[in-house]
Structure formats: structure tokens, C-alpha cells
């Protein structure tokens, strides 16, 4: 039977909840359920009857499409089962939806409004007029079961005689079903397909579909990072081994006994020493392609996914901080694009993407009880086709757990393979291969998933707060891209093989084929290796924490990854071939330097330029995001996302991972995509320099600082783009080594391209600008020495440390004027290192009242932010500014790296000046008591009120409230 319970707020309502329940229960039981779903103080319910409400013309029901994760339905089902003491297998299904009431009169208007409420890829909508509801009394009650077409569970893919065209087609569009349709991209090129063909020819048999799908997952760009692994030009060992890992290895050697790296590049996150008792881990991921299609689902899956990279570090680290970074098209951009030539698959406009992505991180982070501390937002028209959504998580793990070194793990022969957490559905099929290609009309909609943070929270708590220290498992990894196919194959390396019985995998709904179960990316799952003698205790613990645990096979040392279904062996791939069979391809690059020219900029008013620059979305505040993310949970916040009375966004965040300790952790990030329009080498150098500078400026220590790389590139089969990549990676090596800051983790996403059509059906291609995000994580010995960026007291002296050169190329002022320019900021690491060491010393000696790093918009913007952050004025003179900048324009807006503006209490000035005497510096002026910022360069060039600057800085954010 189907019953519907409506729950609405008492009195006037514009939105209400609906619970459609399929059950075999009596009326009294349904009434009992309705009571439990209603908080009688503020809500009221109605059963099988649309509630009495007035003042609306249409009601719009928005619910999920069948099979899409419905978190509220899970909770409701749990409540009902517990309330009525039902058996776990009782016949009970719940489907939730929201009902919006509108006053819009004609159906066209209502349809337009409804379109803003739902995403057709994952949701359904039903419009009912007041009239219809009056007659029918209720929204239609219809069960939303997933019914899968019956099909053969396993098919043999005839490869042995396939010609090159056929092989290519399989690689590009997927295995052919019996009816001729293709399953979706394997993202295997001809070369790889030939190697597979050869392999099976040697075995004298054809591969099964699941074998081919499994190879595609494991070999995908997403999993194997082929572009970073393959030889490129004369770099035989590839970019990753030569430059990224190469830098880390060299730095660790140089550091000797001061090396703080413990587990780098080998695990789901990178781990470094926090103190004698703990390690701290960090990992930053991207979730770009899914966020383009379903911004909310893409972003929430991104953040809860990277949480699992923390829980999957070593024997399981506890997530203690989340970070995010968004690169969007401009919200005012209303141009319409489509994925298909028939114009039936519209792309979401930036405003919708922003809204959904911001919400996704909100729900994912807030529901998980992990403070979301650090973040940034960047805008560029070129992120219009694919947004970039960075999501990262910092973890904490005791160095020893039950006598074991916690960063080491190994599945043992004979251990049970245990799947823990959510169930498997069709969601996320081909996620790994999907993110390895450009976004177009063939992009699979099933690749989109929605995260369930509560299922994961239960799992995470049960692992890192209980099972780990009870020694109940030997190894653990996350089910992310590629699902079981990747996690089991990865762990099987530890023991030497695996044997899985796919029938044992719990499913969301019946009818999934084995290959689908094997590669599905359904969320909230981890794979563990549980010793047989621990299973009973492990299972009991998980049951008592409402976490589903299932034995799906065992780890072996057979040298093969074997999968069975219905007692039949359907996959048997040699471990060596599975992991190392992927052919290498020698990549070639072309260097094409575009020579830009320096523009001649004539400003009517420097003051106006400063104000306009401050209003730019790449510079102005984003409090609307920071304040909807819980950054105080775990009681660890020290330097928050928003600082000072003027609530400016901070460039570094400091927190207390261990409540009983005064040691702090500092987090920063930096990216300068627009510098890449001139040189990706200098773009990468500036990102590293800024991430490090931001950390030191807040109180971080150069000697305990590590960095992470996230390359988001475009068209990575284009030799020019690859040339830009090589440049950037070389800079990573040069500057990491110069600053002695090892890379501990990294990730790449190489095909951020959109290929589609405009409103008139003309083909459109939009590629992102090559984007490198550098994140930094450092340990502070005393968090009480943290410095915030805003000015503090009238009368404090203001200094600049570091040289200002004429370097506005690729910077925000030129961008605002419509130019790229040529003089991109270049980083002099030796000089900057000296500055940073001195800066660190002044902070250690507690001589600073404030400290702000100079980034986009240069000195003028830093002064404006420090002033409006403290809601205090400042009188500034640029006369003695160190460096080669000649013009007032360059002095104000150059983005030269290596610079910091600090303020110093008069009583500390003498000591301070003594310490800084050997580095480039100048006293710029004082914090003033009138609420005005003045800047003079022989004559006064800026005079503007702090209140005005405050309004400008927060204008964009306020418009998003």
C-alpha cells in the first residue's frame, strides 16, 4: 500500500515535506509514523490529503528520480523501523520530496520557476494547480522503484579478430550491448586496446566485459595519471617521478634528521609529523566534471570523497579540517550552451553551478562535523564550460595504534575482503573514465552521484574512533574512482591477489550486472582487510553503530585478481598485467611562447582604480560562503576564515588539531591561472611562493611546512598544453627545492574541456586556463603566536617587507583593463627565503600586530584589506618603496611576489627595525585614527573612506545572500 504523509510548518507555508511510504501497515501505524515525523510545537501533518493551505496557485513537487540517493528517505526508514520495531527486511520503502507553493498565475511562469528548483538529471518535478489538488485531494501516489531491464549478466567481448577501427570504437564509446548500443567510454586508446587484445590472445581466450571494464578503470588517466607517469620529451622517468617526487626525495635527504615526512605519495593522503604523538595528513582532490552536470551532487561527493582519503590514510585518520577552492564562470554570464547539436541537453549557467557547488560543500562539510576552514573563489570566463571544484581534508592520526605504526598497513593472505558502508547502485558508473575525457553529449548521466554524509560519518566514527585502536582490521582503503575494481585491486597488491564473490555485495536495488557492481562508484564505502579471527568482533561493532559490513571475498597470494558470480569465474586477471600492463606512450611537447606586449595604462584616478579592483570578484570578500560553512566545530579554530571587525577573508587559517596541545596547524592555498597566459613556469612559481608566504605571514614555520599540488589542465593531448605543463612542473621542482618544502600529495585532472553548441547550434569549445593549485600545511609550535591580517591599533607603524618591481603582467589590474601584459611576477626564491626567515623571527618574538601577504591587486589591495579588516585608517607614503617599480601605478598594483605588509606597535619598533635591517623593507606610514586610507607618492594619489572600502569589499558577497 502507498501512503503519503505531508508535514508542513504551522501557519503560513511556502514549502513542506512529503513522505511517500510503500508499506503493509495498518492505519494506526501510519498515524504513529506521522506523529513521529512531526514536531507538534512548530509543525502539523496530514495523511493522504494535501494540507489545508491558502494563498497559492500552484504546488510544485520536487523529488529524486528513481535510484538517486535519497538521504532523508534513509533516515525516515530507519526511524519507522525503530519506532514500530520492524524487522530489517520488512517490506518498506520511503520516497521523500519537497513541495513548493507559488503564487505565480500562468503555467508558463510556474514552469519557469520550477526549472530553477530542480535538476532534471537527478530530480523529477510535478506541477499541480490548486484546482487539481482540490479535486484529487493529493499528489499522485506512485512508487519510484528502479526496474532494470533484464539482460545477460556477463558477455564475452570478441577482441581477438577485431580490427583497429573496432578496437578504437570500443575504447572510445564502450562495449557494445546485444542491442548495439554502447555502454559509455572506456577511455582506452588504440594502443592500450591492442595490448589488451594481445594479452588475451596469448591466453587464448576472449575477455569478458567485466575484465575489460576493470582494466579501463585501473588504467584510466584518473587512476594511473598517465600524463605525469609517461616519458615526455627527454624526461625519461616522466614528470611525476622526475620533478614532483624527485623534489621531495631531494628535500628529505637534505633535511636529514629534520625530515618530517612520514608517508608521502604512497597512500590516500600525505602524512607528516605533527608532534611526538600524532601525524597530520592532507589531501586535495578535484571533482570538476560531475560538478558541471550536478553541482550539488558533484561538490558534496567531492568533499565526502576526500574525507574518505583521510579515513583511508594508513589505518585510518580522523578528518579534522576541510578545505575548498572554486573556479567559476561569472554569475552574470547568461549565455546558453548545450552538450548536443539538437540543443536538448542544456549546460547549467554559472549562477546555478555556484549555488549548487557552494551548497554541496555546505551540506557535506557541516553534516560531517568537520570544520571547513580554508577556501578561495576565482572567476574567469574560461571556467564557463567546466568549473573547478577543489575539495581537501586534513587528518589526524596517532603515530601508533594498538602497538602498530599507524601509517603502515597490509592486507594479509586469507583475510576477509570486507565492504563497509553504503550499498551499490548504478550511480557513478564510469566516473573514473568520464573524468578522463572532455565533457560532451556522450558524458554519462549515471556518472553523477549524491553523497550521504551521515552514512559516512557513522562509518568514519566507527573506524577511526573505535575499530582502529581495537586492531580489528589490517588494511583499509577508500572506494572512490573505479569503486571495488580499484580498491580491491589496490589492496590485493599488499597480499598478492584477491578472490571476490560479487553476489555477496549488497545492492540498492536488484538487477545490476556484475561489471556494474564491480566498477560502480556508489558513495560512502570503504574496503577493509579483516583477519578471520577478528570478523565476529568487527561485525558486532559495526552492527551496533548501524554500519553495514559484508564479507565479499578474501585476499590471496595467487598473483591474480579473480571475480566470481553465481559460482562461475568471470574475471581472472594477472595482477602484474592489471597494474603494470598499461603501455607507456612517449609524449611530445611543443613550446610556443606567445610574446605579449606591456600595455600603456592611463588612469583617470588611482583611487577609483583601487576601488574598482577591490570590487572585482577575484579580490572581494566571500563571507557568504565562509559563514555558511561551520568552521568552529571540533572547537579548534584559531585564525578563522573571516578576520577582524571588517571580516576580511584570511589567506591562512590556523587551528588546534589536538585540544590538549598548544601546537597549531596552518593551512593556505594559492593559484594564479591568469599568470599562465604569459608563462606557466612563473604561474607555478608564484603559486608556491604565495602559499608559503601566506603560511609564514600567519605564524607558520618554514622548517615545518609541506605543500600539495593539484594540476587542472585542458586538452592534454595537445603538445602545446603539454609544453605548458612541463614548464609548470619544472617550476614546482625548482621552487619546492629552493624553499625546502616537500610535496606530500598531489592530484591531476587533465581534460577540463567542454565541447558543445551555442544557442544557434554552432559548435563551441571552452577550455579552462591551465590551473595549478598549491596548498600548504604547516605545524606551529605555539598557536598563540598566530598573527591575523588586519590592522589593530591607531599609531602602529606600517612596514612593507620585500621588493616591488614593475610586474603587473597577468595581474588583476591589467585584467580589469582588458590586457594580459608581459611582465609577469617572477619569484626570486633566494631573496624571498631571507625575507620569510626574518618575518618568521619577528613573529616568534611577538613583534607584529598584524601581517598580510601581498597577492592579487598588489600593495594597494593589501593596504585596503588590512585597513577595512581592522576598520582603521592608514596614512601611507610610497616614496621609499624598495624595488625597481618606478611608476605610481606599478607601486600600487604590481603583484611582485615575496612581499608582506606588517604593522608594529610603537614600543616594538626599535627591536623590529633591527631584525629587518638586512632585507628589503620600508616604513610606509602609520595606522591613523581618522577612518580614511590615504596613499601618497610625492603627491596624494588615494584618499578613500574605510567605510566605503568596506562596502565595496562586501558588495559581491552581500548580493549572494
Amino acid at each position, binding site marked *: 500500500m502507498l501512503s503519503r504523509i505531508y508535514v508542513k510548518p504551522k501557519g503560513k507555508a511556502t514549502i513542506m515535506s512529503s513522505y511517500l511510504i510503500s508499506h503493509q501497515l495498518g492505519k494506526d501505524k501510519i498515524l504513529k509514523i506521522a506523529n513521529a515525523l512531526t514536531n507538534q510545537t512548530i509543525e502539523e501533518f496530514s495523511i493522504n490529503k494535501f494540507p489545508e493551505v491558502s494563498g497559492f496557485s500552484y504546488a510544485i513537487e520536487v523529488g529524486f528520480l528513481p535510484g538517486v540517493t535519497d538521504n532523508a528517505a534513509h533516515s525516515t526508514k530507519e526511524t519507522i523501523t525503530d519506532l514500530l520495531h520492524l524487522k530489517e527486511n520488512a517490506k518498506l520503502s520511503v520516497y521523500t520530496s519537497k513541495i513548493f507553493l507559488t503564487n505565480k498565475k500562468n503555467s508558463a511562469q510556474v514552469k519557469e520557476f520550477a526549472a530553477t528548483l530542480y535538476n532534471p538529471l537527478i530530480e523529477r518535478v510535478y506541477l499541480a494547480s490548486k484546482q487539481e489538488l482540490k479535486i484529487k485531494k493529493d499528489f499522485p501516489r506512485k512508487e519510484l522503484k528502479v526496474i532494470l531491464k533484464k539482460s545477460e549478466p556477463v558477455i564475452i567481448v570478441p577482441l581477438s579478430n577485431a580490427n583497429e577501427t573496432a578496437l578504437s570504437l570500443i575504447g572510445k564509446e564502450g562495449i557494445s550491448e546485444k542491442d548495439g548500443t554502447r555502454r559509455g567510454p572506456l577511455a582506452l586508446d588504440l594502443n592500450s586496446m591492442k595490448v589488451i587484445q594481445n594479452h588475451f590472445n596469448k591466453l587464448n581466450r576472449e575477455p569478458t566485459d567485466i575484465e575489460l571494464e576493470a582494466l579501463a578503470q585501473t588504467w584510466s588517466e584518473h587512476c594511473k595519471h598517465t600524463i605525469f607517469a609517461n616519458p615526455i620529451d627527454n624526461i625519461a622517468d616522466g614528470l611525476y617521478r622526475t620533478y614532483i617526487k624527485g623534489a621531495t626525495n631531494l628535500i628529505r635527504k637534505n633535511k636529514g634528521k629534520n625530515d618530517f615526512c612520514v608517508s608521502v605519495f604512497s597512500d590516500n593522503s600525505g602524512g607528516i609529523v605533527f608532534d611526538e604523538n600524532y601525524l597530520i595528513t592532507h589531501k586535495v582532490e578535484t571533482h570538476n566534471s560531475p560538478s558541471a552536470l550536478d553541482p550539488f551532487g558533484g561538490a558534496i561527493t567531492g568533499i565526502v570523497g576526500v574525507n574518505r582519503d583521510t579515513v583511508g590514510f594508513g589505518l585510518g585518520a580522523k578528518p579534522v579540517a576541510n578545505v575548498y577552492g572554486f573556479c567559476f564562470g561569472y554569475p552574470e554570464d547568461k549565455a546558453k550552451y548545450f552538450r548536443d547539436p539538437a540543443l536538448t541537453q542544456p549546460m547549467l549557467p554559472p549562477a546555478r553551478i555556484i549555488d549548487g557547488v557552494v551548497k554541496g560543500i555546505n551540506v557535506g562539510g557541516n553534516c560531517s562535523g568537520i570544520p571547513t576552514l580554508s577556501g578561495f573563489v576565482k572567476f574567469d570566463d574560461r571556467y564557463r564550460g567546466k568549473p573547478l571544484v577543489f575539495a581537501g581534508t586534513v587528518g589526524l592520526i596517532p603515530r601508533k595504534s594498538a602497538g602498530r605504526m599507524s601509517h603502515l598497513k597490509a592486507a594479509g593472505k586469507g583475510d576477509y575482503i570486507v565492504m563497509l558502508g553504503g550499498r551499490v547502485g548504478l550511480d557513478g558508473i564510469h566516473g573514473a573514465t568520464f573524468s578522463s575525457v572532455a565533457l560532451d553529449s556522450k558524458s554519462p548521466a549515471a556518472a553523477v552521484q549524491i553523497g550521504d554524509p551521515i552514512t559516512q560519518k557513522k562509518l568514519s566514527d566507527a573506524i577511526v574512533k573505535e575499530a582502529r585502536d581495537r586492531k580489528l582490521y589490517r588494511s583499509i582503503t577508500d572506494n572512490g574512482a573505479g569503486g571495488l575494481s580499484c580498491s580491491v585491486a589496490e589492496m590485493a597488491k599488499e597480499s598478492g591477489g584477491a578472490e571476490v564473490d560479487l553476489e555477496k555485495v549488497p545492492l540498492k536495488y536488484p538487477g545490476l550486472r556484475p561489471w556494474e557492481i564491480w566498477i560502480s562508484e556508489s558513495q560512502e564505502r570503504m574496503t577493509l582487510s579483516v583477519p578471520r579471527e577478528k570478523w565476529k568482533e568487527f561485525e558486532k561493532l559495526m552492527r551496533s553503530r548501524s554500519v553495514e559490513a559484508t564479507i565479499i571475498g578474501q585476499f590471496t597470494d595467487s598473483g591474480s585478481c579473480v571475480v566470481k558470480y553465481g559460482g562461475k569465474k568471470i574475471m581472472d586477471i594477472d595482477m602484474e598485467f592489471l597494474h603494470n600492463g598499461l603501455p607507456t606512450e612517449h609524449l611530445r611537447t611543443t613550446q610556443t611562447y606567445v610574446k605579449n606586449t606591456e600595455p600603456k595604462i592611463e588612469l583617470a584616478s588611482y583611487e577609483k582604480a583601487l576601488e574598482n579592483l577591490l570590487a572585482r570578484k577575484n579580490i572581494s570578500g566571500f563571507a557568504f560562503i565562509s559563514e555558511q560553512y561551520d568552521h568552529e*566545530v*571540533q572547537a579548534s579554530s584559531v585564525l578563522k576564515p573571516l578576520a577582524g571587525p571588517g571580516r576580511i577573508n584570511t589567506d591562512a587559517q590556523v587551528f588546534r588539531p589536538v585540544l590538549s596541545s598548544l601546537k597549531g596547524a596552518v593551512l593556505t592555498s594559492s593559484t594564479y591561472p591568469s599568470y599562465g597566459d604569459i608563462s606557466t613556469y612563473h604561474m607555478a612559481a608564484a603559486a608556491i611562493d604565495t602559499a608559503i608566504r601566506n603560511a609564514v605571514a600567519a605564524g607558520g614555520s618554514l622548517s615545518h611546512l609541506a605543500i600539495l599540488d593539484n594540476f587542472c589542465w585542458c586538452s592534454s593531448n595537445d603538445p602545446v598544453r603539454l609544453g605548458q605543463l612541463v614548464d609548470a612542473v619544472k617550476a614546482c621542482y625548482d621552487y619546492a627545492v629552493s624553499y625546502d618544502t616537500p610535496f606530500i600529495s598531489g592530484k591531476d585532472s587533465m581534460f577540463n574541456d567542454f565541447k558543445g553548441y551555442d544557442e544557434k547550434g554552432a559548435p563551441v569549445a571552452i577550455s579552462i586556463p591551465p590551473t595549478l593549485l598549491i596548498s600548504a600545511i604547516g605545524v606551529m609550535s605555539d598557536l598563540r603566536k598566530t598573527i591575523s591580517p588586519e590592522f589593530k591599533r591607531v599609531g602602529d607603524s606600517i612596514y612593507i617587507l620585500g621588493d616591488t618591481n614593475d610586474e603587473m603582467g597577468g595581474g588583476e589590474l591589467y585584467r580589469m583593463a582588458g590586457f594580459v601584459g608581459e611582465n609577469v611576477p617572477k619569484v626570486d626564491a633566494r631573496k624571498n627565503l631571507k625575507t620569510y626567515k626574518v618575518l618568521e623571527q619577528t613573529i616568534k618574538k611577538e613583534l607584529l600586530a598584524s601581517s598580510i601577504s601581498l597577492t592579487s591587486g598588489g600593495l594597494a589591495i593589501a593596504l585596503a584589506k588590512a585597513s577595512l579588516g581592522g576598520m582603521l585608517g592608514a596614512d601611507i607614503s610610497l616614496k621609499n618603496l624598495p624595488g625597481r617599480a618606478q611608476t605610481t601605478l606599478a607601486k600600487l598594483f604590481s603583484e611582485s611576489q615575496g612581499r608582506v605588509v606588517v604593522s608594529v606597535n610603537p614600543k616594538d619598533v626599535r627591536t623590529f627595525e633591527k631584525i629587518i635591517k638586512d632585507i628589503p623593507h620600508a616604513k610606509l606610514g602609520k595606522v591613523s585614527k581618522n577612518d580614511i586610507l590615504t596613499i601618497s607618492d610625492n603627491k596624494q594619489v588615494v584618499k578613500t573612506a574605510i567605510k566605503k572600502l568596506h562596502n565595496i569589499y562586501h558588495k559581491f558577497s552581500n548580493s549572494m545572500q
Partner: protein
Amino acid sequence: MKKVKIKTKQPKVIVMSGYGLNCEEETKFAFEWAGGAADIVHLNDLIANPKLLEQYDILAFPGGFAYGDDTGSGKAYANKFKNHLQKELGEFLKKDTLIIGICNGFQIATNLGILPGGLAWNKKGRYIDCWVDLKVQGKSPWLTGIKKLSVPIAHGEGKYTITATDYKRMQKNGEIAFVYTKGEICEFQNLEKNPNGSDYDIAGVLAYNGRVLGLMPHPERAMFPEQSPLWYLNKKGLKEGAGLQIFKNAIKYFR
């Protein structure tokens, strides 16, 4: 002899966990810093062994996102608690014990029916994390010696909702624990005094002669001086944040 023993007794605190509650560790830390002995206990472990509750002096429902706020914040956790532990809760309340519900814990407590009113969606319909100033109104062991307090809130459903009749009764009985007020932090960062739009500016309420306290703001997020946005103006001096006093009061009640 007996008297001395009571004086030195370390009050026992049970901090609930499970199903997405997430502030249990810092809440335990605050109670222990204040001098108590705190245990984190999963709801299912308490259901499996309901007698456990008798051992404790203080019951804390910490903040979090139990069941992801699905079906309404605090509702599902309270349903499960009521469904299995109604009797034990009643007995616990009959004794001279204390209960606190913080944020999601407050939402749970109202759904359990041990505190009046309910928590609805914030007036802007969005989750918000910011600092607020509180003025103490009611009388409670939890509030001894506190007149005002600055602490952060972080919630989506924190708009306290109450009928006029109930409000009048509560006011008369001194059952309004805190109201939002324009104080130090609001002045400092130019913030709204009542950001979620609570009825009568109510931030926290009392019941059972002040022994049960529910509040949306998080005192444990103001237990260290460095947590306050004002700390940067004067870093020296303070050993603890203002929020700790609430936990100290509870411990002191049993000494």
C-alpha cells in the same frame, strides 16, 4: 568523613554520540577541563544497557547533525531515544541531576519534550556560523555567576519558536536562559544581534528548575581564549575562554 567524600567526588558526565552527533569530543574535553569525568556513550550502547544512565550526574546532548537533520533537526535521534529510553530518562530527571543540550542537542531535547518550544529554519533559510552575544535572564545551576557571554552559533535550524502564552509562563518562571543581545562581539564585527530570527530573541531555555538547559550557541567553542574573534586585540592574560564557565558551574553543582 562522609561530607569530605562528597566534596571530592568527581561528577560523572555522559556525553551522547552516534548517528551524526559530532561535538562529543570537545564537549567531553570541556567537562573534563572543568573537573568532571566524562564518557562518550553511543546511543545504541545506552539502549543495549539502559541502566548505565543511573551512574551519571550530568547528561549532555552535544551538537552535531544527527540523521543529517533529515525529517527535521533532532527529531529522528529524539524518536529513537524516546522509543527505548523514555523510562530511564524520566528516572534520571527525578534525581538531582543536570542535563544540557547544545545546538543539535537542544533540538533533540525539545523533540524529547524535556524543553519547551521548537527550532525552525533560520530566517534567511541558510546555515550560519557567526559569533553572538548573550544576556543571561533565567536562574539555573548552569548559569551561576554569568551575566553575559559571547559564543559562536553554527546551525541551519536555530530559530527558537514559542507561543506567546508559553513565553509568558517561561518568563515568569525564569525559564529563559539566554537572549541574544547587542554586545561586545556584535559591536566589534557589526553583526546582527539575533541572526536566526528567534522569537523574543531567545537563545537558550531552561526547565526542571533550571536543571535542564538547552541552547543553540556552543559554549565549548568559546572555552579557549584563542577561539574568540577579540583575542587578536589582546592576546595576553586569559587562560580560558568565557564559555568554560558553564561547564565549571555544572561540575561545581555536585561539589
